[in-house]
């Protein structure tokens, strides 16, 4: 009995491995490397990290090489950008983009900043949401604003790292609504979640993707989304816009490489990402996570990133954060 089962599963594993290895060489001819590193500055378990780790399994199938996710933490992306800037442009190493790396480039003086990188393909737009602990009295962001106006000390906001997009969303939100409550930064999305769960902060900004197990378990609630329309997966949750706060925030998630990646490699990524987005298993995953697929090819994505940087810079100057 015991050995029988063990052998069958082992045989299955071997067979699966064999299949994978016979498929690999065919695809590998299309891609010049057997191992490709995807760098993220996200601390492990953070949004980008989870997304990349989820995607690499499917990417491997679609493109051939083995993808490895590497966390190059530090400097809110500065270290990761420095690594990318000094890496070969032969298609062996890429960067999982989020708005953070552009903000970091704008907030500090760096040798290697976002201009050292170029967009290769966008994958998702990731809606930002406001969440609270399940037993919180707040039902919408308007409740939070009202409570904070009545007594600024009664509300504490939580955001992830200092250079993150949510940090700036929070400043913009405070400016638009005139709220003055304090904002607490964390080391990453995981720590922020703990702060909400133990009641340290009253409301926080996060991405559905990281929050879904807690939402399913009824530990936390989403009270508002920063989207243009209500989300299909959360039809009862109002948008900020509905409540008179005209902000739509999309955290983009894509792939960038050191500037100078060849057109062939870019094309390989373009087909690869499109293939991955069509994969039914991956589709099932990302729909459940409320990630909105938003593929952009290299040229378009690079332009998009530059536009984003220009907008952000204007914002930072307007808010007196940089000169």
């Amino acid at each position, binding site marked *: 009995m015991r050995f029988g089962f063990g052998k069958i599963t082992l045989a299955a594993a071997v067979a699966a491995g064999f299949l994978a290895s016979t498929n690999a060489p065919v695809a590998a001819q299309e891609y010049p490397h057997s191992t490709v590193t995807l760098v993220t500055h996200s601390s*492990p378990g953070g949004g980008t990290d989870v997304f990349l780790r989820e995607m690499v399994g499917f990417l491997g199938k679609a493109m051939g090489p083995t993808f490895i996710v590497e966390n190059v933490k*530090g400097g809110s992306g*500065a270290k990761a950008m420095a690594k990318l800037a000094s890496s070969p442009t032969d298609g062996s190493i890429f960067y999982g983009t989020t708005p953070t790396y552009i903000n970091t480039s704008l907030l*500090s003086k760096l040798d290697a900043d976002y201009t050292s990188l170029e967009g290769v393909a966008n994958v998702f737009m990731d809606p930002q949401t406001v969440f609270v602990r399940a037993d919180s009295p707040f039902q919408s962001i308007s409740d939070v604003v009202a409570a904070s106006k009545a007594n600024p000390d009664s509300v504490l906001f939580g955001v992830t790292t200092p250079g993150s997009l949510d940090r700036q969303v929070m400043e913009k939100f405070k400016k638009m609504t005139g709220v003055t409550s304090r904002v607490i930064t964390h*080391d990453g999305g995981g720590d922020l979640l703990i702060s909400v769960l*133990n009641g340290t902060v009253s409301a926080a900004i996060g991405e559905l993707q990281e929050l879904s*197990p807690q939402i399913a378990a009824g530990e936390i609630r989403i009270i508002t989304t920063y989207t243009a329309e209500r989300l299909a997966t959360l039809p009862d949750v109002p948008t900020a816009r509905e409540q008179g706060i005209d902000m739509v925030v999309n955290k983009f998630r894509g792939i960038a490489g050191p500037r100078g990646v060849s057109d062939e490699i870019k094309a390989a990524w373009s087909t690869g990402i499109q293939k991955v987005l069509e994969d039914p298993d991956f589709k099932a995953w990302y729909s459940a996570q409320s990630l909105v697929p938003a593929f952009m090819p290299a040229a378009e994505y690079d332009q998009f990133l530059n536009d984003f940087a220009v907008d952000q810079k204007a914002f930072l100057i307007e808010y007196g954060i940089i000169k």
Partner: protein
Amino acid sequence: MEGFATAWSVLTTTPAAFAAVAGVAWGIVGGALPGISPSIAMALLLPFTYDMEPISAIVLLAATYVGAEYGGSIPAILIRTPGTNAAAATSIDGYEMHKQGRGGEALGISLVSGVTGGMIGLIFLVSFTEPLAKLALSFTFPAYFALGVLGLSVIASLSSGSVIKGLMAGVIGLMVATIGTDPLSGVGRFTFDNAELLGGVPFILVMVGVFAVSELMSQAGKPEWRKADDAQTRIKLPSFRNWRKLWKSQGIGSGIGIFEGVMPGAGGSIAAFMSYNEARRWSKEPELFGKGSPEGIAAPETANNAVACTALVPVLSFGIPGSNSTAILLGGLLIHGLHPGPLLFQQEPEFVYGLFGGLAVANVALFAIGMLMLTPAIWLVNRPKPYLMACILALVFSGIYSINHSMFDLYVVLASGLIGYLMRLFGFPFLPLVLGLVLGYLIEANYRRALELTGGDHRVFWESSISLGLLIAAAVFILASAVRDAQMARRKLRAATQAMEANAE
């Protein structure tokens, strides 16, 4: 009981037990290579797990973590180079024992302690997942700050004369910890526009420099090693009598390890150093610490293996990894479509109990494989000294390069080596420097965040009962050691004056 049955059936019907053994073996090798951290060892395996069934894949990764946490102690003891961050504390007394020709005994203690810590950690993981998860949630910013202060408070209890130098070394450690991106505002501090410094100075670089490189420098000047033939060339497990002497430090190690494993903000190296501190504080022979105390190995080694088990608590119950290693594990879970969180235990009991079973196998395997692997390790360090030292230097450089693939890091290690040598020369203790460095971020970030909660009101630190308790403990320890120091100084002075007067007459 149902859990045991589930675990048994999973272990007997899947190759999970085999994965546990393979993972431990790989983990020990990876952990024993300086620079190859548990997380790198796990990440290297990740691609091989894609085609495995989920339970085997996760057991393989978790077992690698267990093996690597132990493996790090081997080079820490034999060549004073911690293989992993968490083994840094072990190098203090482990290497001293090795220098005295008791390397085999030190390795035996480390192995037994690692297995003990792993088993106790596992028992807590299995039986108290929920209360431990609650404990993780109960720690807020003031409590983390107080935990850091308690860790630092040991500096004050450093023995005689060098208290001022100890404090200076501690402050320098804290200063080095401020290098990098500010945790609250995101501005760079002391980075001199150097991107390499934005992420701060990794603690392992300073550790390896201060301990291993300065040791090589010192050896170059004055060979202190015993000849290979009169040193122990075999691993020696502690006898029952000696093992009983270690129960207290192992208890301290497992307690702190269990506790800090579940805290997302703490982690293995802080647990190892804090249990080293506490073991020394509560030891009957604190004066042996730093001079080859078996307890100084038992405590941190029990702690870091206990951490390897209880660190799974926040991963499984919240989906929040507390360290790089558990994050890789989380990645493995997600790749196999398992979404850890409060519902995992209800939805996938087979998986959870199978994982627990696999960890039990891993801890048993750790003992057996550890015994097997130590013989070649001991053989290697008993090669002629010139060659050994040359290879250690090459190994240190190769391993450190592996962490960030950075040449800059190698220069940092070399500079730390020089600093370590100067510290030796001028009688500065290493431990406070390392403590300041390990705890600096924890203390500063949480101090400032805690005050942010109240808008600058320091009462926050005594309004939380956990933080109050930890701070009182720290204050008591500092006072106690100050009193003891003063008594000792007075006694010394009296003896000196008497001697002088006797001379003068």
